[in-house]
Every structure is written in C-alpha cells, then in structure tokens.
C-alpha cells in the first residue's frame, strides 16, 4: 500500500471568499504582515501498490477530487505502508 497525499487549491484566477474572510480576521488580530490567504483541501488516499499508481491518482483527481474548472491539484506518493 502507498499513501498518497493530494493537495487541492483554487486556481490563481479564482477569487477565494473564504480565504479573504480569514485574512480579514488575521488583520483584525494585528497580523498585518499576512498579505494573502488561499484555502484548499488536503486528502489522503491509501492505494494498493501497482505500476500505474500515478496514472490512477491523476484520473481520480481529474474525475472526482478536483474540479479543474476552478481548482488545481498536486500530489505526493509516499513510502510503502506496512500493516
């Protein structure tokens, strides 16, 4: 089994109202040095090891985990998990 860490972020061109609200709150807390906040998603998958894990994860992200109209994704395929 491989652990796959998937990071989904909003595209640069897409406004992030949640991120803007969090940034406003940080500014209210006097963290004026925070210049931008973008909120994304982090998803962990445990996938049976095979030669085409990366190909499968690409398909999984394109089809379901990310909406590529508004989101980008990247992932890390981690070490073997021994159970």
């Amino acid at each position, binding site marked *: 089994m491989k652990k796959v860490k998937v990071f989904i972020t909003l595209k640069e*061109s*897409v*406004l992030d*109202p*949640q991120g803007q*609200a969090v940034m406003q709150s940080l500014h209210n807390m006097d963290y004026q040095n925070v210049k931008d906040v973008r909120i994304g998603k982090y998803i962990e998958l445990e996938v049976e090891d095979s030669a085409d894990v990366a190909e499968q994860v690409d398909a999984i992200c394109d089809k*379901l*985990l990310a*909406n590529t*109209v*508004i989101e980008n994704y990247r992932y890390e395929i981690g070490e073997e998990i021994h159970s």
Partner: protein
Amino acid sequence: MKTAVIVFPGSNCDQDMYYAIKDGLGEEVEYVWHAETSLDGFDAVMIPGGFSYGDYLRSGAIARFAGIMPAVIKAAGEGKPVLGVCNGFQILLEAGLLPGAMLKNKHLKFICETVNLKVENNHTLFTSLYKQDEMIRIPIAHGEGNYYCDDETLQELKNEHRIIFTYNGENPNGSRADIAGIMNKAGNVLGMMPHPERAADALLGSDDGLRLFQSILNHWRESAHAAYTS
C-alpha cells in the same frame, strides 16, 4: 407529458418540484431514486435542489457519479428537457452538461430570499411564455451559487444567448455577469440557482415560476404533435 424528479440522498426540494408539476401543471410526474439506471418513458427530467450527499467534497460532485446519471446524460443527448435547480444546477455543472463551476457566495452567507430575475432569452423551450427582458420574482436559497466560468466560456454563453436568467438589481452571490441560469448549446438543458418550483402558486408569494413548467409542456405538446403529423 411524463416527468421524472430525480431523488438523491439529501435532496430536499423534490416534493416541491413534484407538486409544481402535478398540481401546478396538472401533468404526470414520478420520483426516480438515484440508484435507478433508466429514464426510458419519461419526457422530461428534473434535478431538484437540496444537499445531495451532504455536499461532501463539492456540491454535486458525488451525485454526478450516481447510478441514474448516465441515464440523465442520455436523456439530455436525446434532446429531452432537463432542468437542474440549485443543487440540480451544481450537479449538471459537475456532470459537464453545462459549462463552469460554483464557488461559495461572495459574502459567504447562505442566502434565502425572493429575488428579481430578468429573462434574458425567451426563445427557449423553458422560457417561451415569458416576455423578453421580463422581470420575475423567484426565491433563491443557497450558499454556493456564485457561478464562475473563464472569459472564453462567458463570451460563448453571451454570443449564443445561453444566459437565460440574470439577477436584476443587487447580485446576491457574486456570480459572473450576474448569471442566475444558463442553457446548453443544444437548448434542452437548463441550470438555474433560483427555485421556480417554489414560485408555482400565488399562495407561495409568486407564481412567476409556473410559466417555466408551462413552457416545457407547450414545447412537448408541439413536438408530440409534430411527430404525430409527420
């Protein structure tokens, strides 16, 4: 006209849709559970509002892979009227039957109120009983109705007159070009955030939504008649 109302776990406007068609329109209507795989025998398909699968991951993302969806896509391909309202619109976007995506409302609030809409195109099977540029009052109830698409798609929607409804006056959710509802290229799939089924009887405060269903019925009668005489 026999209409299917698709029911997902978490749909909550399915009964409103059912009664708008049964009592408002006086036509035959049936619920179709998401695990079904056929829509044969139905003349029109309604995807109602709600929170299918708890809006997990993204609104509509999981519903898009429900067992009934290949049949919805098939019905759309056959030219049958397919209407997605609110969460139904989100599902149609996720399924790729309509272009673009939904973002959280600009001010992050769930908005539940009756808004003014402008009918941007009345030359459609969904809007033929409205006047061009008519102002109508229809309720909205959503947290993710901030329609987004890229510049190219927006231009295409404008050029092809596929923006069907826009918010008139204040834009409640920050959607691009004040978009409240759009149609596919073929003209038989409409997605809209406002709820016409909640405005299908004057007792509900407005019956402006009823003409949308009547337009679909008129279209069906005309095409059924054309098929009969040809």
